[in-house]
């Protein structure tokens, strides 16, 4: 792709998010409304960088309890057990189901971590005003968006098990505090990805619109 593509902002135009009408922007004025529907007009997602940062920091914080605390309590006739994500992976690996262990590891540990780290990288690259490899960074962003929901795998597993296995004294499964934290991490990274405006990847720092 050529970086010399003409963008709406260069033309001084903007589409309204509310009604879709193409509007001429007024020079020198920051806050504008659509003449037709009155919605606020944005050239780029508003406060994209700081919002992304906020979500990212929140997910960083919650990522720790998500991995340290038990995600699931299994109670059966013969005792109860609490598993963290890591101990579940280790258990699966030790019991010979290495493929399952791999899936859980990728979905529950690798993907969320990769997502947070790469999003951080993208935000930083925008803030530092990098313009090189815009294409690659955009592709990375697309992968991020696509893969995001899949990291909910663990949460799915837990919710399904909790719903299914409620045999009172015989066997019960309860979600642990990590399930909540983990779910929050996944949701927050999704928000972070949504808050991030990939168009910023293509623009030099001085031309950022808010």
């Amino acid at each position, binding site marked *: 792709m050529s970086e010399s593509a003409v963008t709406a902002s260069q033309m001084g135009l903007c589409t309204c998010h509310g009604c879709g009408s193409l509007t001429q922007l007024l020079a020198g004025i920051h806050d504008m409304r659509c003449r037709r529907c009155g919605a606020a007009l944005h050239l780029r997602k508003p406060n994209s960088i700081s919002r992304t940062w*906020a979500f990212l920091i929140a997910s960083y914080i919650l990522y720790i309890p998500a991995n*340290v605390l038990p995600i699931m309590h299994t109670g059966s006739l013969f005792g109860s057990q609490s598993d963290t994500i890591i101990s579940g992976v280790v258990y699966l690996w030790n019991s010979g189901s290495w493929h399952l262990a791999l899936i859980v590891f990728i979905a529950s540990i690798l993907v969320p971590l990769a997502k947070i780290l790469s999003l951080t990288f993208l935000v930083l690259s925008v803030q530092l005003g990098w313009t090189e490899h815009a294409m690659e960074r955009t592709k990375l962003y697309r992968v991020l968006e696509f893969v995001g929901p899949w990291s909910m795998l663990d949460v799915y597993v837990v919710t399904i098990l909790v719903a299914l296995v409620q045999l009172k004294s015989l066997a019960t499964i309860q979600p642990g505090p990590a399930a909540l934290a983990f779910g929050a991490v996944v949701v927050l990274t999704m928000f972070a990805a949504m808050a991030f405006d990939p168009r910023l990847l293509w623009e030099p720092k001085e031309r950022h619109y808010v």
Partner: protein
Amino acid sequence: MFERPRGTELADLPTAVAVRKRRLAPQLVWLIPIVAALVGGWIVVKGILDKGPTITISFKTAEGLEAGKTKVKFRSLDVGVLKSLEFGTRHEILATVELVKKAEPYLVDDTKFWVVRPRIAGGQISGLGTLFSGAYIGVDLGKSANKRRDFLGLEVAPIVSADVPGRQFVLRADTLGSIETGSPVYFRQEEVGTVVSHEINKDGQGVTFKIFVNAPYDQYVNADTRFWNASGIDVTLDANGVKVDTQSIFSILIGGIAFETLVDSAQHPPVEDNHEFLLASNRAEAMKRVDTIAWPVQFEFTQSIRGLSIGAPVDFRGIVVGEVKSVNIALNPAQDEFRFPVTAVLYPGRVQAVLKAGSGEYRMDEEGRRIRWNKMVAKGFRGQLRTSNLLTGQAYVALDMFPDAPEALMDWTATPPLIPTVPGGFEEIQVTLTNIAKKIEKMPIGEISADVRRALQSLHRTLVTAEEAVKRLDRDVSPSAKATLEEARRTLTAAERTLAADAPLQQDLRMTLRELTRTSQSLRQLTELLERQPESLIRGKKETRQ
């Protein structure tokens, strides 16, 4: 591709409407990381605050234990988890366990840990659940005040947990019987306690039991309580017929201990924890005696102790006051002689002290005993080996008074103290016989027999001579003797005839004597007359006046 709407040039597009600047100062989105930080921080702080103590427990084996999985349970409540296993310097297994915070105050000296595994003992099956769930570590929370973090894991679960009210007692017995850990303790056939443990004494002499009697039954245990082994069936045959005595079917199978308190001692205050009792082998024996004091003594015999077996009674005039514990042989190299030290225990408790008022205290202490025994030995109190059964040769040690015994003293320096002995009755006879035999042996039988022979020879000669003399007598003397005897007989016959009542000589003699009597009468009259009237000799007889 797309059809642009007519008349829409770039310039025709509507312009945006400018609005008043409203700078919403800090963006609300930053609340999210703040909340996340608060929540995360709270979780971390809570985690740190809730983190329980970590302790180490040493076990003999890690069988069934799994790091990260094995739970620590207090009455089936999870109170911790096994973190890691490693082996220690003494090849024991060191288990690092993390407990819940609430367990912290209970990590004290008498807190006990053990591994719960499936177990069948004492008629009870326990830990079946662990067949499927795997072993777990049981914990019994203690009450002590001394904190500690490293524990020695028990091999089996404590029978009685620390918070069960009741008391523990110690029983001593010679053998285990069929009592097991977990066997019941009966009081009037009611199950009131449990055997907590049993072990061989350190010196190998006997077995020590620990039993736990639940409250409120522990109040019936006092110094006069008798314990006995209630295992199996006790069949006695006596004058009243056959009597079968047992506690319960259960105790027949798995053994048990029963106790009973003497009626007259029911008022005694209960004894303290871990009081020691003797465990009798049956009820009769238990109720018979209390040999709480066993005093080891020693006798020393020089004669054969054949028939004296271990367990033989020490008897005082028919009453068993002790028993033989060991029989040894000792060589006294200085004198080159063998002695037989016999150790025994005396049960002074069997001797009842009957005290007269004012005679002082019966002192049960060592000093009192010394004084008493010294006095008795001085009066002739001795040990003696006697045979109780001539057929089997069973022997026993008798204690008795021997006023004539040679003087001896108690040897208190020996361990145990040495009671002087006198030779036994049988032995006495034996000694006498031996002495006689020895004397006989010492006699110069050869010389004597030579003398005797000589004597016999001379006697023989004498006899021969005598015989010759007799023969000569017979030949030479007897005819004349015969004639002499004839002569003598004739003489005697004549004499007889002469002396017979009707013999003429006799009659003549009688008449002569009568004549003589008359003559003497006349003579007397004459004499009298002459005395009175001497003149009559001249004048003649004068008439007497009346």
